[in-house]
């Protein structure tokens, strides 16, 4: 369809962190993955009365934002702040940022619902006479999609290009593409990328209305899978152009592939056409063949239709032997944060030599031909492809790997 382009230049992942229901920071996340632990529990969030399971991050309500940034106070930005404080990430990136002109550091964050929980709650406290929202309701700092990127650029005093990518559940995979292009163009020298999405009523009741959420902890690729479990997460990576003298244990973003299904707003293409285009584009961008990928972190939402179409797409590109798994049985589907969370899981797989087996899956659906891992494999992992697909038929595949 489009002329094939030369591979893109790799980008260095200097530092990364992730917080979800399976752990705050990389160490806890790794421990949970190695233990095959799921963080999904029966939903007790807010006033939600749905028979479903969620991946709630403990302690978000107790996080205090710096006083001068009070206008950003909401669950989503508290979750962002909590994640920043793990793994020494805040100190790492403050050190890294000092090496560059803050006007040449980008902030690109994916989210689907931002701080809309504030608005949902505010609608229960409207003035009985005028219908007005409470006076202290702050739209720009909380509800607006940009609020999380705006919070982070103020929090970290970064003055370069900034935006939120909001492409449903592919949002925080696509931020890697934007950062890679701006680094390649020479507009910026470094970028904070990531994804932050927090529990809210819109997604819990919305997926329930579409009959896409499960009553049990979600079971990706299982023969009895019956829907997603919604989770929340914040995950970040600091990206730079690689230095000339790169360590052999560095982790690189090797390629990004993006596509659109052009099929349906809330259902994937039945044969996974868009997913296939995204994976093929990522391989082309990385200058790799399918056989160069050791492990696939699947989108694997555990809806019957997603897993069927993704399995077909994966089999079309990789055949039936490349091992893959979905970590959503552990973390839940963290929606706009899933791309970045699973990018960090990919980095963990490479750094610690583990292909995490998918938890909750009792019996793999025999009609799904992709090779689905249920047990951890402790083996050297050089290259990982991670899939993220979203409503609107938007698809993004990322490839991470070691140099060379």
């Amino acid at each position, binding site marked *: *369809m*489009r002329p094939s*382009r030369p591979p893109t230049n790799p980008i260095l992942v200097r530092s990364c962190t992730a917080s979800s229901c399976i752990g705050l920071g990389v160490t806890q996340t790794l421990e949970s993955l190695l233990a095959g632990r799921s963080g999904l529990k029966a939903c007790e969030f807010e006033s939600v009365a749905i028979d479903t399971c969620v991946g709630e991050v403990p302690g978000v309500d107790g996080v205090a934002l710096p006083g001068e940034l009070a206008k950003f106070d909401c669950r989503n930005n508290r979750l962002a702040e909590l994640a920043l404080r793990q793994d020494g990430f805040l100190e790492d990136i403050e050190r890294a940022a000092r090496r560059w002109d803050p*006007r040449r550091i980008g902030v690109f964050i994916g989210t*689907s619902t931002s701080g*809309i929980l504030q*608005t*949902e709650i505010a*609608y229960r406290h*409207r003035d009985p006479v005028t*219908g*007005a*929202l409470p006076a202290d309701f702050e*739209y*720009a700092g909380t*509800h*607006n*999609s*940009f*609020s999380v*990127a705006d919070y982070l650029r103020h929090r970290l005093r970064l*003055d*370069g*290009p*900034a*935006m*939120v*990518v*909001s*492409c*449903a559940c592919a949002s925080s995979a*696509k931020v890697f593409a*934007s950062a890679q*292009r*701006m680094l390649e*163009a*020479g*507009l910026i020298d470094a970028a904070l990328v990531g994804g932050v999405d927090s529990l809210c009523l*819109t997604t819990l*009741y*919305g*997926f*329930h*209305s*579409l009959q896409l959420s499960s009553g049990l902890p979600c079971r990706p690729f299982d023969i009895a899978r019956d829907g997603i479990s919604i989770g929340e997460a914040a995950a970040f990576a600091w990206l730079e152009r690689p230095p000339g003298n790169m360590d052999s244990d560095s982790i690189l973003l090797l390629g990004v592939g*993006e*596509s*659109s*299904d*052009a*099929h*349906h*707003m809330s259902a994937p293409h039945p044969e996974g*056409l*868009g997913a296939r285009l995204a994976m093929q584009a990522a391989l082309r961008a990385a200058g790799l063949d399918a056989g160069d990928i050791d492990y696939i972190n699947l989108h694997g939402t555990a809806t019957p239709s997603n897993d069927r179409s993704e399995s077909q797409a994966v089999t079309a590109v990789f055949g039936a032997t490349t091992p893959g798994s979905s970590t959503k049985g552990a973390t839940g589907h963290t929606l706009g944060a899933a791309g970045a969370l699973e990018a960090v899981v990919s980095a963990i797989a490479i750094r610690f030599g583990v292909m995490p087996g998918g938890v909750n899956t009792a019996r793999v659906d025999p009609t799904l031909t992709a090779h689905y891992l249920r047990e951890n494999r402790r083996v050297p992992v050089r290259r990982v492809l991670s899939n993220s697909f*979203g*409503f*609107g*038929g*938007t698809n993004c595949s990322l490839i991470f790997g070691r140099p060379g």
Partner: protein
Amino acid sequence: MTLVAYVNGLGLLGPGLANWRDAAAVLSGKADYAPAPTVLPSPMQLPPAERRRTGRVVKLALAVACEATTSADVDPATLASVFTSSGGDGHNCHELCESLARQPREVSPTRFSNSVHNVAAGYWSIATGARGPSNVLCAFDASFGAGLLEAMTQVAVDGESLLLVAYDTEYPEPIHAKRPIPDAFGAALVLTPHRQRASLARIGLELCDGPADVLQDPRLERLRVSIPAARCLPLLRRLALNESGTTVLDYLDGPRLALKIEPCA
């Protein structure tokens, strides 16, 4: 670092501005600006079942995207796209928040599907069969600048033609009081990496620190500052005048976008 792209086609729809031709006449001073409520056409590109489900934000985005690709004489299926909006579909958001504040809580599945920020990009892809990369951005009042920067970076780095669509619609009350966008405004540009027969102008973009240009006509200036997507108007005025020059567009509270515009004709 200068990013370069060529503008091959434009679309525009806003209060008292029915299309790019009308808007160009107003922006170049050949016609008076007469503000009037924005009239949104039904998106005839969509199948009837999909068309019934679309709200104002989809109608607006598809109208300007269609005008731009038609005037550029390009098959929209071949274009990558960048959509940018400061807030998505405000009416749909309001309806969802109302239904979540009531008991029993009953959410419409269609309203939920349409609540994603990339709803217009999704319908555009369905309507045109475009399977290329599509990005959907938000940067609050800086959304047009973020979209233009992302689009021109993509054109320069990927070397492919791209459709940029910037659009905003109003929220109803009670959110309107907190985010008072008065009406719908959208603009679309078809950008290409190399000069083509359809090219209208060459744009060079750099980040800068200076203040954004304002419009002399107070009614147009009110439009520029009241709807984020209309922050594009100083650029579109240059294109309407078809004359060389530079203009600074609003972006974030730090960086702004310095544009050098050179007509091709």
